[in-house]
């Protein structure tokens, strides 16, 4: 308002101002960097920091009927420590997604290795082919596994037709293993791509040198390829472990009573149980545990890498 109504600013001062700002930007590299980052920083602040702030504040409240008692209390955290369900579900979630992460990385590594070292033409097409199954929705893939593992599903029908089993195997569906299998498949693309990138970057002359110096294929893999591809393995592991720990769709559909994870309980707190502060406290506990595990994993991996390389 004041700009349109007030007197026009003096051209000369306006110019000087911009040039001074410009000079400041020119001089400080950090300032230039932050200016370039500012849109991203803004989205990070609005989209991540503010919600996490709300979550932290809310976790110290208590639910009263439909409203909140906003006096700060650690009652939610005390309850999470005292009642066995929360710790047990958290441990189970970490265990299950740890298993899923290991399975995914171990199964995906050979694929990434193959594409990086043994495919010489049309690499892009191979990558596209590998990621092709992931163009369908996550939910559809989970349902597909329900069909595969189901009571009259693909595996059970096949085994029964072959005469190997009399009655359908019941442990296939609605169990922890069903969740682990599905997670391992659903997240494979996120493991293959980073591992492929770090394998692809390995200088082939190093491998030739190792062969020249007398290393067999296995020693060469263990001493050159594996250590050099560890960054890819680490990022793949974190990329899978972090989101799968809080997953709730897969255990809801495939987990059964014994396969529920902490994500299911958090969702219930915000839904049927209607205790949002408790849900917030559980989310924060989950975030902290994942953070602690991720950091220690990275430290161990770095240590191992230094030792073997």
């Amino acid at each position: 308002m004041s700009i349109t109504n007030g007197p026009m600013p003096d051209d000369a001062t306006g110019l000087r101002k911009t040039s001074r700002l410009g000079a400041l930007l020119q001089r400080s590299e950090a300032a230039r960097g932050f200016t370039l980052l500012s849109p991203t920083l803004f989205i990070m602040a609005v989209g991540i920091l503010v919600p996490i702030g709300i979550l932290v504040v809310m976790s110290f409240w208590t639910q009263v009927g439909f409203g909140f008692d906003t006096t700060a209390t650690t009652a939610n955290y005390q309850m999470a420590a005292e009642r066995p369900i929360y710790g047990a579900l958290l441990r189970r979630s970490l265990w299950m997604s740890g298993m899923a992460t290991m399975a995914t990385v171990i199964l995906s590594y050979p694929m990434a290795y193959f594409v990086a070292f043994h495919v010489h033409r049309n690499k892009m097409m191979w990558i596209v082919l590998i990621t092709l199954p992931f163009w369908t929705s996550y939910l559809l893939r989970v349902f597909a596994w329900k069909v595969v593992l189901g009571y009259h599903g693909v595996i059970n029908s096949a085994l029964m037709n072959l005469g190997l089993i009399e009655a359908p195997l019941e442990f296939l569906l609605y169990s922890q293993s069903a969740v682990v299998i599905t997670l391992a498949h659903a997240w494979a693309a996120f493991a293959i791509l980073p591992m492929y990138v770090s394998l692809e970057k390995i200088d082939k002359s190093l491998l030739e040198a190792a062969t020249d110096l007398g290393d067999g294929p296995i020693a060469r893999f263990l001493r050159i390829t594996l250590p050099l591809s560890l960054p890819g393995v680490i990022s793949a592991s974190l990329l899978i472990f972090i989101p799968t720990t809080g997953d709730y769709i897969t255990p809801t559909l495939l987990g059964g009573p014994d396969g529920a994870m902490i994500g299911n309980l958090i969702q219930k707190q915000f839904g049927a149980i209607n205790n949002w502060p408790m849900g917030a406290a559980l989310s924060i506990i989950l975030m902290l545990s994942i953070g602690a595990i991720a950091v220690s994993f990275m430290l161990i991996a770095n240590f191992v890498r230094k030792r073997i390389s």
Partner: protein
Amino acid sequence: MDVIDQLGSLKEGKLSRRKFTTSLMAAGIGVMTTPLATRKAGAAAADQGTFFTWGGYDIPELFAPYKEKHGELPNFAVFGGAEEALTKMLGGYVVDVSHPCNSGIPRWIASGLFQPIDTSRLSNWADVMPELYDLKGNIVDGKPYLAPFDWGQTSITYRTDMFEVEGEESWDMLWDERYKGRLGSLASGGDAWWCGAIKAGVPLTEIDTPDAFEKIAAVMRAQRPLIRLYTDDTTTLEQALASGELVAAMTWNSSAALLQADGVPVRFAKPKEGALTWVCGLMIHKDAPNLDLAYDIIDSLLSVESGKFMISDYGYGHSNIKAFDGFDDETLQGLGLSKTPADILAGGHFQIPQSQQWETKMNTLFEEIKSGF
């Protein structure tokens, strides 16, 4: 601007930069405005009312009068349990009409999210059975908040060819050790906890006592290792019953009716302890963006056509007394229904509204039990 001419000059490399930019702009404007044009032509679904309901009610058969009037179906949003729906709306989700049940009425009204119904705007209201809307807490200052729509029972659907009933049908069937790992249950405490109360012999009027909590929790804990699957998705239960993965499950009337229609040998049990009975209905959101359409949605659901479909295909009771006219007593009895719903409602165990604190406490405990604690 002649398109052919432009393409020709482009081929010859003669298209001037200005002309090229002009055609680009024309194309851009064309692309931008296309969605506007189709939006107008299609009488977008955004102009319809939104019905936030249980899965299975989002079907054209229940909205014939609505479709006749507006040419399209309302928009649907689906929930698995009424508690989940209420929390979603408390979180700011605005719909036109939602679908709670009798046990939730006082709490839903207390949430301040709903408006009383002006019954003069419903052409079918005169035929609605009064005992269905004269429910505890429903009528405030002479106006009902809930327009009753469907009523029925929560009981056991079991495979007559696979489940051997010992003596009379009873809730013990869902606690039968012989069928460990072949039994299923609804996951929502709104059904399962109340059925647990019936099984434990706790009168529903005393469900809010520490003693009742203890007794019901013990019963639910005993049942948990026997259950293969807790779910709010009735389709999952029906498929599992159809394939024989489950031999008995806690369901509503519709699961048994749908499976029987498919030729699956199932029966909807009449447990000797009594089944759990409920009435569900429609409430209008206080900020309903399409209030007129909200009344049309309700009127359509209360119509005789919808009622006949509910009775014949889903096996639920309907609130419109005229909907029962086409059915003889024997058919109704087979479905566990009656033209005088008071008989059925009084014969079973009718859910009693509880406080929000009770709901939170019960759901917290039931979740722990379902997870094995």
